[in-house]
């Protein structure tokens, strides 16, 4: 008779521990979301007419804030056994995608190149390979990149408003390359697939901007081939 009760106490032990871990994780994730919103606010200014010159300083500011991100992530890592990453994945998945987006956006603004998974991992101070520790799942990396793509389509529009007629063409080339990359993937009917469907609209929007510029003779073919 004892054994059934004992068994359930034993299982209850597991469950409580699990709940505690989740509670801890939730708190850190909340802090991460807060800082992610702050970085976003910093970067949003690039959409302002006046914001274009300030890109370098804004990126520097963002990179500073990523220090805090790293601290929180370091904290997060201590909250659960490393081999159980996917057990709690849902908790940080969303914020990690946001942070990837922010890192990718900073890198794009700085160098107009696609951030690699390695670079994101480095910016967040996490791993690329699961075996090595808290890592960046490839689907989360891709989701973050897709968020950036949609931000870039917005940037293309606002660049024109700010009088920068060259940036949209560079963005167009960049996004086209990204699109070609995504076409290589076999996605399931999951959120990533849905996001990827959105990329087509971003590409379309940018194409329309480029078209608007070109019919007005405002587009100069960027020196594209070289600066990538």
């Amino acid at each position: 008779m004892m054994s059934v009760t004992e068994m359930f106490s034993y299982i209850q032990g597991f469950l409580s521990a699990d709940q505690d871990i989740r509670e801890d994780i939730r708190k850190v994730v909340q802090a991460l979301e807060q800082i992610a919103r702050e970085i976003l606010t910093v970067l949003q200014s690039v959409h302002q007419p006046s914001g274009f010159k300030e890109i370098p300083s804004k990126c520097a500011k963002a990179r500073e804030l990523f220090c805090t991100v790293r601290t929180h992530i370091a904290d997060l890592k201590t909250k659960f056994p490393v081999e159980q990453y996917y057990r709690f994945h849902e908790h940080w998945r969303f914020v990690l995608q946001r942070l990837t987006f922010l890192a990718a956006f900073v890198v794009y603004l700085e160098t107009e190149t696609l951030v690699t998974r390695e670079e994101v991992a480095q910016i967040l101070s996490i791993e690329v390979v699961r075996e090595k520790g808290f890592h960046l799942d490839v689907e989360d990396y891709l989701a973050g990149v897709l968020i950036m793509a949609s931000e870039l389509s917005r940037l293309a529009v606002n660049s024109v408003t700010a009088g920068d007629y060259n940036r949209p063409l560079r963005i167009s080339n960049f996004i086209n390359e990204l699109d070609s990359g995504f076409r290589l993937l076999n996605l399931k009917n999951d959120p990533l697939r849905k996001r990827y469907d959105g990329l087509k609209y971003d590409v379309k929007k940018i194409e329309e901007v480029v078209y608007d510029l070109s019919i007005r003779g405002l587009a100069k073919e960027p020196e594209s081939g070289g600066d990538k």
Partner: protein
Amino acid sequence: MSKREGEGCPKRRAEAVQDGDMTSSPVIAAFKVFQQELDTKHDKYERLVKISRDVTIESKRTIFLLHRVTSVPDVEDVLKESDVKLDGVRQKIGQIAEELRGEDINQFHRAFTPGVQEYVEAVSFQHYIRHRTLISLEEINARLVFMKAEKVDPKGSADSLPMGAQVLTFQVMPSDYLLGVADLTGELMRMCISSVGNGDIDTPFQLSQFLRQIHDGFSYIGNTGPYEVSKKLHTLRQSLGKVEDACYTLRVRGSEIPKHMLADVFSSRAALIDPDEGVA
């Protein structure tokens, strides 16, 4: 019907791609890696789903087989046959373990959880029939230790552990254990009703005790467990009710034994009241 107005825009993608020599682009190269990574993962997931379906089907059949214990003369025969079946299921679970070697088991959990739950149900049912106790998670896991499958040829095995250490284990998650045990209660209820139908009077009372313990256990866990448990709790409660009703009926009708039969009853009762009833 539509003007062809596109000539003003830079150029078709197709051409752009040609220009840019996409094939050597680092972006494309990176995405080829991603493609492989994703496909590998999806393929593994799909294989796990298929093995899980097999595990489910065979576990269900084992449960059906085990229900025969209330109607056949030799319980041991059935148990032995179920051992063979469960060995087969375990081999399948070994395949799951093989697929999960070096992976984060949680990543593929959804693929194999239905099969594992059904296995827990089957193996705990067999265990109850044999021992009249609840199998523990450890006991379940202890039987999910596999010697390395033979496919690793001498050539490739150099990088793994030196020798004899080709051991692979599968750990049932507590939530799967719980969900399997929750389903077990339905089978126990069926067994209880069958027992009454077969004139077996002890088993229903034993079962009602046992089920009550499991029910109290689940009440104790309450809503701290996984969400699916709460859903199954209602069925569990219904099963307990059916078993309690059955015991009630046995008791009520037993109250009517005419005086002249009472002596018989008590003497035969005495003979059966002892051995491995520590369970109940």
